[in-house]
């Protein structure tokens, strides 16, 4: 029985698909749906860039989360959204563990092999370190 599902969201097309799947599962299992969006800051940052990134992220996610909330409300899904700052994989794994989630649902950005080699893949890291089941949606 799944009681709590964590969906990682970054506004991309694949993370929308992940949200759709996670909300279907949450409705089916009557589970709590926890959405996590992680704002990744450039490193090492300057005051101006930091402020600009945070402001943009705040606006972006306020709009996105409002829309997602509207989509879940007709089905009466217990939905909570959180926005954090940091490294996405670390925050997703830590939150899933902290909140006792049984499932993580996330999208895959489809980076090239060079991109994956240079930057790594968030979904691969989550799959490696998560304490629970992970579903990656393309």
């Amino acid at each position: 029985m799944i009681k709590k599902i964590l969906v990682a969201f970054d506004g991309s097309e694949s993370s929308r698909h992940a949200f759709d799947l996670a909300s279907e599962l949450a409705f089916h299992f009557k589970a709590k749906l926890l959405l996590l969006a992680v704002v990744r800051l450039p490193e090492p940052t300057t005051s101006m860039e930091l402020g600009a990134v945070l402001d943009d992220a705040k606006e972006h996610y306020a709009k996105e989360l409002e829309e997602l909330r509207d989509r879940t409300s007709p089905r009466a899904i217990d939905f909570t959204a959180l926005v954090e700052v940091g490294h996405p994989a670390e925050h997703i794994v830590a939150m899933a563990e902290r909140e006792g989630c049984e499932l993580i649902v996330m999208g895959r950005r489809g980076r090239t092999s060079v991109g994956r080699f240079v930057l790594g893949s968030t979904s691969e890291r989550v799959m490696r370190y998560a304490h629970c089941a992970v579903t990656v949606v393309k």
Partner: protein
Amino acid sequence: MTEVWALAALWLGLALLATLIAIWLRISTALSEIVVGTVAQLVIGAFVGIQALGAKAPWITFLSGTGAIVLTFLAGAELDPTVFRAKWKEASWLGLMAFVAPFLGCTALAHYVLHWSAQASWIAGIALSTTSVAVVYAVMLEFGLNKTEFGKTLLAACFINDLGTVLALGFIFAPFTVRTLVFGVSAVVLFGILPWVTSHFFKKYGGRVSELEAKYLLFLLFGFGALASWADSEAVLPAYIIGMVLAGTVGKDHVLIRRLRTMTFGLLTPFYFIRAGSFVSIASLLAAPFVILALLLGKMATKIAAVLPTARKLGYARQESLYTTMMMSTGLTFGTISALFGLSHGIIDQAQYSYLVATVIGSAVIPTVIGNAYFLPRHLIPALAEPEEPAAAGQPAATER
């Protein structure tokens, strides 16, 4: 005019490339622009000619200088006056120690170990005395420490540290003549009345499409910059203090700050950071990498020697003290500003400038990594103990329910 437009297109093209690299590699635009500037100077210098990039052209120097001034102003305006008033005693001690020890220590290191001239050594001391408010704040945000008393004190201390740096930069090479006195007295008087004047002026005439606020602030920054320059001081000194004194008025005006950011980010800082990077000599860096290591170790050792005992004396636990020390060992913007000041005034040569910029970049990364890996005070992190508070203005690191 063709040459100017072509040069402008080249610089904006480099800025565009730097931004794309920053997006691809998720590094800061400033760092990317410095690196692109360095590589562009190397490549263009080798194939077209050493002057082809035009880094010393007057209009590029002007845009770059304006970028440094506005960047410094915006950094000062980030100060939270309420937190500062509540924590000024602890913050002042920490900030002062974090400035004085590396300032004197790195000056001594450059002079006695690296055998730099006295004036060049002072520049090394100033460039390495800085701390990066932005780097510290980014780390605080990541762990939710920005909401704790510890985090707030540390951030306030960073402002004091950087204030020490800009004061040193502004006055260490000043001749202390009547002009210095005129500059000092008029600055103190005007800084005193500026918050009141600004707030009333904006209330009466602000909020129009003519961007009166931006023009007013640029007028202030250029005016004080000219006064500082006339007194043989440095324009970033009044810019930072104006930012700090207007933090409670301009700093709270989110819309205005965003407009200033757009102007600065889009046009001014690319010229500043690319120009700063274009003066870095890769050959010098490769020839003496141990100089960079020595300067970096010097900065970190002097920060440890001063900040650690001060933090312990202020009652911080060992872990918090070590973490505070590591965070206050960071630096980026003011370090490059100080080094570029030294180079453009002929105080340091290109090799010394290159070592300082490389050390400053290293100090923006290495202490943060060490601090987060070994000294993070996990017991203070609120996110692990309880759900976060609802989102406050300007703080997206929050819960939305």
